[in-house]
């Protein structure tokens, strides 16, 4: 065993985003205490914190830079992911402003929790050591358990939190067990050392190692809500406050995928024959269960939850493909997904009423003729989620499928495109209600500037990434 911390390996500049964000998060906590629950101040501080984090992420030159005994890395993947995280956390905070007002969520720690969660996500995307990955996952999960249950007086929210906590703790156990088995059979928790170790064919057939891999897949599979570890997702997504749901569907999921990708593409690429099939099955199941499940839903939050399961299935293809093209497609996909998901949830918030009412798809009947701009924005998000051009979702899927085709995963891609077709059915269903049904009840929509701003960012992002994706693709495929 090498010494755990050699002094010269501490690199605070590389760690800057984590430090900056932690400081800001604590500042938010303190301000909440002193500032007399001044929501605007808390929000402003959080947004500034996220901005500073994004800037400080670029402090380290040149990249890739490894520090802390090769357990923390600043590279292209982590930088891009940090940008996705800060954008999605900022959007979540903007979405929360008016929602919390309406639902009477007065907790100042709400913002601090989102920031701490983001810290965990940054760690997850930047670590190249199993221990660090575990730490990241725990930070993210604990914040999310609290966030999901933050509507304390609502029993659905409580149910969501408890369910998420119990199942999440269980999954974390699997993950940790997997890590110990991998450590036991390879002698290291560092991804590069593991990769070196499994070079030898003799090491690859170690049953303990294989067992460890399976447990890792279960653990990560739970965190990204893939089938058959998805049971929590619909209930938690439905019960959690809507901005938190949007946040969970984007940020933490992206972070889990970052770690998933790193572990399997960097530590175990040589063993891909032994995990490729298992992951492919999980991907295919996620697509089918997610899409078929979404068709049945009448509640829009549940529908979006199932749709996010199916998207997890598509994104798993990037992990299976594990090429550099796959990593850039993963980045592009997560960014596009962030824009369209936040946009869609923004509309859900606009149409929602106090006490999480008005979330049935039938509540959208006739929206197009009362509020055409809202309806057309929702249409854009849904079509983009369905992967229709000229929106971001199409370019993202094209990118992802290209990466898979390049690796020869034709069957998987064909299954994925068929699933895209299935998914169009339920996305269209919402459009049917908005455009083709008569209005049922008066719309009482809450058009607040901040929520509208998020929707606007969503629309601009979705269209821009769909029509002029060149700049972002160039960045992602650095």
């Amino acid at each position, binding site marked *: 065993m090498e010494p755990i911390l050699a002094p010269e390996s501490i690199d605070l500049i590389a760690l800057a985003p984590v430090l900056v964000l932690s400081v800001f998060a604590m500042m938010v906590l303190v301000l909440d205490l002193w500032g007399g629950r001044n929501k605007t101040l808390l929000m402003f501080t959080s947004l500034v914190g996220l901005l500073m984090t994004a800037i400080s992420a670029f402090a380290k030159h040149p990249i890739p830079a490894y520090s802390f005994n090769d357990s923390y890395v600043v590279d292209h993947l982590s930088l891009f992911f940090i940008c996705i995280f800060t954008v999605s956390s900022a959007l979540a905070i903007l979405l929360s402003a008016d929602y919390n007002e309406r639902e009477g969520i007065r907790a100042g720690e709400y913002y601090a929790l989102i920031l701490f969660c983001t810290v965990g996500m940054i760690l997850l995307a930047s670590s190249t050591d199993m221990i660090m990955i575990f730490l990241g996952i725990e930070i993210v999960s604990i914040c999310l358990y609290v966030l999901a249950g933050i509507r304390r007086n609502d029993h659905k929210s409580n149910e969501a939190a408890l369910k998420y906590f119990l199942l999440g703790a269980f999954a974390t156990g699997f993950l940790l067990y997997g890590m110990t088995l991998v450590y036991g059979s390879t002698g290291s928790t560092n991804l590069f050392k593991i990769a070196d170790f499994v070079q030898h064919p003799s090491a690859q057939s170690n049953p303990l190692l294989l067992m460890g891999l399976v447990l890792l897949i279960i653990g990560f599979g739970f965190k990204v809500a893939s089938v058959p570890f998805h049971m929590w997702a619909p209930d938690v997504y439905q019960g959690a406050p809507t901005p938190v749901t949007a946040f969970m569907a984007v940020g933490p999921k992206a972070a889990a995928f970052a770690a998933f990708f790193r572990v399997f593409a960097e530590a175990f690429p040589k063993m891909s024959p032994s995990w490729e099939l298992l992951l492919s099955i999980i991907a295919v199941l996620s697509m089918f269960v997610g899409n078929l499940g979404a068709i049945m839903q009448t509640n829009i939050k549940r529908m979006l939850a199932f749709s996010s399961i199916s998207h997890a299935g598509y994104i798993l293809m990037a992990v299976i493909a594990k090429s550099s093209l796959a990593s850039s497609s993963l980045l592009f996909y997560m960014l596009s997904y962030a824009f369209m998901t936040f946009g869609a949830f923004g509309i859900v918030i606009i149409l929602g009423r106090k006490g999480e009412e008005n979330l049935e798809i039938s509540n959208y009947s006739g929206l197009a003729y009362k509020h055409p701009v809202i309806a057309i924005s929702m249409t854009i998000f849904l079509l983009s989620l369905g992967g*229709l051009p*000229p929106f971001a979702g199409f370019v993202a899927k094209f990118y992802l*499928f290209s990466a898979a*085709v390049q*690796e020869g995963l*034709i069957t998987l891609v064909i299954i994925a*495109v068929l699933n895209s*077709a299935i998914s*169009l059915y339920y996305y269209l269903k919402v459009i049917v209600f908005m455009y*083709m049904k008569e209005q049922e009840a008066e719309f009482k929509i809450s058009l607040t500037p901040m929520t509208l701003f998020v929707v606007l960012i969503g629309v601009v992002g979705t269209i821009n990434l769909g029509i002029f994706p060149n700049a972002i693709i160039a960045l992602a495929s650095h």
Partner: protein
Amino acid sequence: MFLTFITFLPFFGAVFLAFMPKENENGIKQTALAIAVADFLLSLLLWTNFDDNTHKMQFGVNIPWIEAWGINYHIGMDGISLLLFVMTTFLTMICIIASWDVKKHIREYMMAMLALSTGMLGVFIALDLFMFYVFWEFQLVPMYIIVGVWGGPRRIYASVKFFLFTAVGSLLMLVAIIWIYFHIQQTTGVATADILYITDHLDVSLDAQKWLWMAFFLAFAIKVPMFPFHTWLPDAHVEAPTAGSVILAGVLLKMGTYGFLRFNLPFFPQASYEFVPMVAWLSIIGIIYGALVAMVQEDLKKLVAYSSVSHLGFIMLGIFALNPYGIQGALIQNINHGISTSALFLLVGIIYDRRHTRMIAEFGGLAKIMPKYAICFMIVALSSIGLPGMNGFVGEFLVLLGIFQVNGLWAAFATSGVILAACYILWMFQRVMFLELKNPKNMNLKDMNSREMITIAPLIVLIFWIGLYPEPFMKTFDASVTHLVSKVNPENFRPTQEHHEDSHGEHAQLMTPTEMASLNQKLQMPVLIKE
């Protein structure tokens, strides 16, 4: 850039309409019409500047779009797309006039119509596979909205069915497009989705060709629609508003046949050659089946819809005759079907507006009280049958000539479609126009008004023009057809084909492990991954 302007003018017109006040209905209609007329006149200008003597792309623009992937905004026009392009702007204009009396959400209706026009125009001029796919999917949305919002009682079912059928087919095409993209990159080292480049350089084994051909075939066969993928068409037609049916029959179906001519034949000449019997038999089944089913329809619109299935069978047969007569016939028949069937739908729409029913049994003896209508209907019906001197005859004759050179039996079967067409059209005409004027509800029907005459008259002029003097139309695609036919001629299959056939295995994703490895090595290909 002129071509770009014409293509996107309707779309920006739609955006402009969005800012007009909803109450100003006349203003909205007039603006939409002005945009459509301007677009049509501009596209005529294209025609006059079009050089008939070359198969090369004209009015081309090629600027980088997604540089990181080597995808370009590449547009251009040759003889195959010119007439379809002009017909699109023409029918959009006719449709906007025909929709003058739409009551519900007129602004949104006109916006959808104009946006649809841009989508369709884009399909015909796109010369980059990625771009083609974008337009191909984009036009689905406005059409879906038109059927779903302004359609008949079962409009939601019909519109969703239309959308999903097309989407399923085209998604498999997307996989094929991605595969081709990587294959081209691997064999030539150029990352591109350029249609012309691919046409010249695509070199795949016969087995792979077959799989790719099938993927494209499915997308286009659903769109055409060929038997047995036609089931969405009667639903969509019956439920769509009149103008929706006109666009659907006039242009959307032609996107399928256009796809065959632009992709299947030039990309996969050898596979196309191999699949001729299959396509021919499917087309013949479509011709006869469509005609027989049309004969027993009680709904006028459904009858016309099934007649479309039958007529499109002719076009497919012409394309897969793979000789000049057949393809020329198919191309002119594309236009003819667009004119005649659109006119039929307009005429059915006129009577539906008055009586709110399309049941043949409800009518009878209309010729007595609506003479102008009856005359127009007669002319259009006869042109649909293919009476000599009218447009249908020219196309059908050429197609039959073409297919006869390939197989006399097929020609014989196809000819029976012409006879059946005469049966169902004339029988329908008799039941609607002649007989006794019995139904009291029909006693006071008004004849066509001048707006309706304006929509029908240009189509009737075209019917006779193409029927009597098709030369100006035919000569636009002569050079392109000659070029295309030379590509699908077995003598011109690339010589390397044989060699490849041997070295490859059995399936489409045929990459041997060594090839896979070399592909993987090229992962860091300079063009794809920008430094």
